[in-house]
């Protein structure tokens, strides 16, 4: 009996018992659907994290301002100004691995031109190296220059969305607009950057297409915070080579520790470390999900085996007849194994479709990124086939080992 023959008779037999076949499949269907949807969530989160870390730059170090603890505030001896502009200059001087350093100062100010006041705009004070650090270039005009920074010029570079919302498709360069009370000249417009609002990733990023960049010196001069005149929110450090990120981070920490008199009012973030951390989390997630999926597939497999054992008994007479007509033990084994594998694999396929549907639903309703990777589909397919073979083998052996004479007498 060749394979094609066996397949078609197997399919016929399963179609004949539609309900039973479907019920038998359910374990595998849900097991596989769980695998697919869980893996799609994991994969989506992984890609999102990667994307965001890529946006930060893998060979960058970020220093963020941290709120002082109560203890630090009470201790008069440890007066630190917080993260400030001079820190950035010091890091540029003292960390040889650093190829570029930029302070980042966020300003609460409205950006408008006449009646056009786009919402959710972030005004960011940076220096001339910021575009290189973040690998975000001006698509027209230029970025903030060294001279702008030196002279605290009132110039700005618009994010692509800001540009569109204020100037539409019109030319913006050379025009002036208002940031807070001050007039600023537009000198450049940034290129559009793909941005997705992260829900699951470890790091939250703002939409940089809604940024307006001004020189850091201008930001500190024109939008001075009277309590902390030199304070910045972040410092971005670009390291010459990804391999130097770790030693550079050691130096950065040492420089800052000295400058801040040991007060930890900042935190040093290394995207590479965040990546490793998120991968560890991811791995745990995968193991947990994998175990749950394996368990449900095990239950599914046992379900199939149970039904197949009952089927073998029920079809004893048929086995006897087929044996009398010339079926060998191997033919009978093949017939039943084939049916089990068919059930498992069809269940697997339905499960893959259901899982993909669930991934889509999760994406639509929970707004989580989900990605059904080809690998997860292949793995599920392979696993369901394996479940069929593993749990079909015993019932098929039972069928093949039946004495044909006894089987023929079975009523």
């Amino acid at each position, binding site marked *: *009996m*060749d394979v094609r*023959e066996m397949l078609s*008779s197997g399919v016929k*037999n399963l179609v*004949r018992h539609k309900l039973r076949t479907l019920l038998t499949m359910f374990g595998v269907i849900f097991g596989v659907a769980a695998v697919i949807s869980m893996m799609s969530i994991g994969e989506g989160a992984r890609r999102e994290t990667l994307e965001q870390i890529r946006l930060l730059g893998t060979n960058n170090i970020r220093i963020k301002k941290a709120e002082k603890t109560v203890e630090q505030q009470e201790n008069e001896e440890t007066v630190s100004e917080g993260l400030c502009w001079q820190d950035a200059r010091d890091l540029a001087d003292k960390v040889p691995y650093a190829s570029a350093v930029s302070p980042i100062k966020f300003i609460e100010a409205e950006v408008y031109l006449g009646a056009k006041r786009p919402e959710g705009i972030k005004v960011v004070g940076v220096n001339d190296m910021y575009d290189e650090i973040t690998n975000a270039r001006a698509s027209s005009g230029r970025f903030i220059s060294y001279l702008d920074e030196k002279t605290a010029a009132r110039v700005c570079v618009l994010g692509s969305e800001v540009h569109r919302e204020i100037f539409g498709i019109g030319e913006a360069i050379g025009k002036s607009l208002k940031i807070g009370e001050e007039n600023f000249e537009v000198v450049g417009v940034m290129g559009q950057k793909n941005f997705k609002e992260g829900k699951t990733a470890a790091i939250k990023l703002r939409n940089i297409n809604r940024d307006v960049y001004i020189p850091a010196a201008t930001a500190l001069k024109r939008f001075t915070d009277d309590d902390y005149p030199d304070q910045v929110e972040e410092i971005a450090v670009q390291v010459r080579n990804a391999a130097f990120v770790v030693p550079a981070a050691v130096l950065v920490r040492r420089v800052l520790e000295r400058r801040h008199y040991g007060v930890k009012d900042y935190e040093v973030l290394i995207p590479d470390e965040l990546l490793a951390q998120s991968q560890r989390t991811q791995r745990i997630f995968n193991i947990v999900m994998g175990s749950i999926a394996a368990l449900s597939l095990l239950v599914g497999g046992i379900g199939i085996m149970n039904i197949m054992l009952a089927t073998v008994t029920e079809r004893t*007479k*048929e086995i*006897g*007849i*087929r*044996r*009398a*007509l*010339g*079926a*060998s*033990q*191997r*033919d009978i084994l093949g017939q039943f194994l084939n049916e089990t594998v068919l059930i498992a694999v069809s269940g697997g396929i339905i499960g893959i479709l259901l899982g993909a549907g669930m991934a889509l639903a999760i994406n639509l309703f929970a707004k989580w990124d989900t990605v059904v990777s080809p690998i997860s589909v292949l793995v599920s397919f392979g696993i369901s086939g394996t479940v069929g073979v593993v749990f079909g083998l015993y019932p098929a052996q039972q069928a093949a080992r039946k004495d*044909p*004479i006894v089987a*023929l007498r079975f009523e």
Partner: protein
Amino acid sequence: MLIDVQDMRRVYRMGDNEVAALKGVSLQIDYGEFVTIMGPSGSGKSTLMHILGCLDRPTTGRYLLDGTAAETLLDVEMSRLRNRKVGFIFQSFNLIPQLTVVENVELPLVYAAVPREERRDRAQKVLDAVGLGHRHEHRPTELSGGECQRVAIARSLVNAPPLILADEPTGNLDSATGIEILRIFEKLHQGGTTLVLVTHDPEVAKWSERVISMRDGVVERDTGSRKSAPRPAVTGTGWREEA
């Protein structure tokens, strides 16, 4: 010689007890013979039939079927031999109820790896020959007993085996239908098919030309071949062509 059995014994183990179903049987059946094996239940005639049909192996002794020593074969080889050389007909028809009539008839060809189109063709021909050409898409449950047995006969003939083994083929049929079936056997016999019929009914035995009586695991009486005129040597049924 189609069947050559030499000093065949078959012993069943029932726990610690050994029960001998056949206690040294020797017999020869030639091509084209119509033989009845008779005997009361427990005489060993069913065991003999199972061994002749390659469903079982003798404990000791030799069995040559169409020149092949059947007792030494592996399962795959024995199944192949059974498939090519033996056509079974049972008392309770033993059709698979889920399959249509024509699918049932095709089954031996499936295991003989005959291509699909040829299978359908050959099944159709034997069904026509037993007068059931019009019912091939029916299920066995929709047929009468006589029709079922004719399907079973068609199934036994479809692979053109040299030997047809029938186990009480009229046992589940009323006498009129039984005679109908026996007429088909007679026709097959005239066509050169070797028929071995197991029964306990002397009326049925009268249709055959040779009666082998079994009792307590041995051949009690063998009327011997009554063949008057020598037949041409026929391998295969040679029946399809005639029909």
